[in-house]
């Protein structure tokens, strides 16, 4: 019995019970759809983060509170709340010289920015005077925050495009007073467009304020991060060594981690990878459930078609012929479901791309396809075996 004949048979029996076939496939469709979508989201997020890091420039070294192991967050997540990094550390590191060109500190928080009854939530970053320069953040109007602003604790703010649109509309914001936390701050500049990433938020909802003002608003003197600029890319390892040596004299080894953007990036991607795998794994459970659905319906089909099986055997079908026929039927069901799931999942991921970065990868599609085919085989074999073992006489007389 040739395969094309078997395929024809299974397609026919699937189309004969359309509603039942669609409902059976639904399990696989949903499973594949969620695997594709979630993996695409994880992949997209990872691509996005990588892109953002590439924009930051590569000569920057970060000091983060808490211990981060070299193999990811084996020592626990960054300990922002219990940070022991201070402005003095940042200032001292900046003066170390050698491979270190400059250093600045920051602390940030999500906070409301208010203007005349209107308010907008965004990221408020308190930075040292050199912060904007270090991170090559420029202003499109007005001026940036200076060392003097920080030293005197001036109530000034440089705000992002989105904040301005929301709070000021067409009004020129320079010189106006906004309220952040309990402080009145004068807008002195507008940030250049920092690019948008949809739902993740963008740099355009940021507001920069002097760190000395931020510590008053947030009620904490500690820094969440110290950024160090190395003299050149080649000097990054030396700069890291210098910074570590200095910090070890001030703090315990567990209190801080020093990493450059590439190792920070790999750490973040590692987390995202684990997250993606975990989400994909959870979604994959629904694939198994879908497979059980297929097995269930195939068992029903075998019982229903006992007479047909008996007849086929009476006219010369071998057990193998019957086995293959029912396995193929299960595989066609699950692969069809898989293909529909892939189309919907990939379509959904692409449609979401405007609000959330997604990336449909070839491997996730081929994996989903392969898994759905395997699900069909695995869950199709038991009912098919049952069918192939039927005694032709008993089967023919089955009512």
């Amino acid at each position: 019995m040739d395969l094309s004949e078997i395929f024809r048979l299974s397609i026919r029996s699937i189309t004969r019970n359309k509603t039942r076939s669609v409902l059976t496939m639904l399990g696989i469709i949903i499973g594949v759809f969620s695997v594709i979508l979630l993996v695409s989201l994880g992949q997209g997020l990872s691509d996005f983060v990588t892109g953002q890091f590439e924009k930051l420039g590569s000569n920057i070294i970060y000091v983060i509170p808490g211990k981060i192991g070299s193999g990811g967050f084996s020592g626990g997540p960054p300990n922002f709340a219990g940070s022991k990094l201070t402005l003095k550390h940042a200032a001292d590191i900046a003066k170390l010289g050698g491979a270190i060109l400059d250093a600045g500190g920051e602390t940030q928080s999500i906070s409301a920015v208010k203007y005349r009854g209107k308010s907008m939530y965004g990221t408020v970053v308190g930075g040292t005077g050199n912060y904007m320069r270090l991170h090559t953040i420029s202003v499109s109007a007005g001026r940036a925050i200076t060392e003097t602003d920080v030293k005197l604790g001036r109530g000034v703010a440089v705000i992002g495009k989105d904040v301005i649109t929301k709070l000021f509309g067409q009004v020129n914001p320079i010189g106006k007073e906004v309220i952040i936390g309990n402080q009145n701050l004068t807008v002195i500049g507008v940030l250049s467009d920092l690019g948008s990433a949809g739902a993740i938020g963008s740099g355009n909802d940021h507001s920069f304020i002097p760190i000395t003002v931020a510590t008053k608003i947030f009620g904490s003197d500690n820094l969440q991060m110290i950024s160090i600029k190395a003299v050149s890319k080649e000097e990054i390892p030396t700069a890291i060594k210098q910074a570590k040596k200095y910090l070890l004299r001030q703090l315990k080894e567990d209190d801080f981690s020093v990493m450059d953007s590439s190792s920070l990036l790999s750490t973040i991607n590692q987390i995202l990878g684990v997250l993606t795998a975990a989400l994909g794994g959870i979604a994959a459970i629904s694939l198994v459930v879908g497979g059980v659905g297929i097995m269930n319906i195939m068992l029903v089909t075998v019982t229903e078609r006992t007479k047909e099986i008996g007849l086929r055997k009476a006219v010369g079908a071998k057990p193998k012929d019957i086995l293959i026929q029912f396995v193929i039927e299960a595989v066609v069901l699950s692969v069809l479901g898989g293909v529909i799931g892939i189309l919907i999942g990939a379509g959904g991921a692409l449609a979401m791309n405007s609000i959330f970065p997604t990336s449909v990868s070839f491997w996730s599609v081929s994996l989903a396809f392969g898994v759905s085919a395997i699900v069909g085989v695995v869950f199709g074999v038991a009912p098919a075996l049952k069918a192939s073992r039927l005694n032709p006489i008993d089967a023919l007389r089955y009512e």
Partner: protein
Amino acid sequence: MFVLQPILKMALKSVINLNKVSKKYEMGEEVHNLSEVEQANLRNEHIGFIFQIFNLLPRTSALENVEMPLIYSGVPKSQRDERAIKALEIVGLKDKLQNKPSQLSGGQQQRVAIARALINNPSLILADEPTGNLDSKSGEEILSLLNRLNNEGNTIVVVTHDSDIARRAKRIITIKDGEIVSDKK
């Protein structure tokens, strides 16, 4: 009514000269000792079945019903069609090729089943009460068809309780409780 397997065993053991069936199956060989695959091949190549309740696949055309045994002997589609059309022509249903069983009368359904039994040129056709589910007129049609096929050289074993049907056979073997009680030519 007899169970098919004892009939088959009986037929092969004592009624039919098995050397005529196939060199592969010797006289007196017990078919239930054959492997499942051998049994399937035997049924496929050498025996045509006609059942009391027709046993056609529902929602499947007459043509495809008749073709079914050929699928399992690996005959390609074009040849299958050709041979099935020929078989349906023999039973007088050439104009009903695409009809589904539900669109055929009982007598026509049984003729489709006969065409299916004929398709592989079997050495033996086993008919189990072939007119049991038919009215007398259709039954008569089926019996004359079987008589005709028999006269054309097909070996047909009909199992029946009806002595009128039995009288139309060239040889009558009477079986009671599994034992042969008489054998008349």
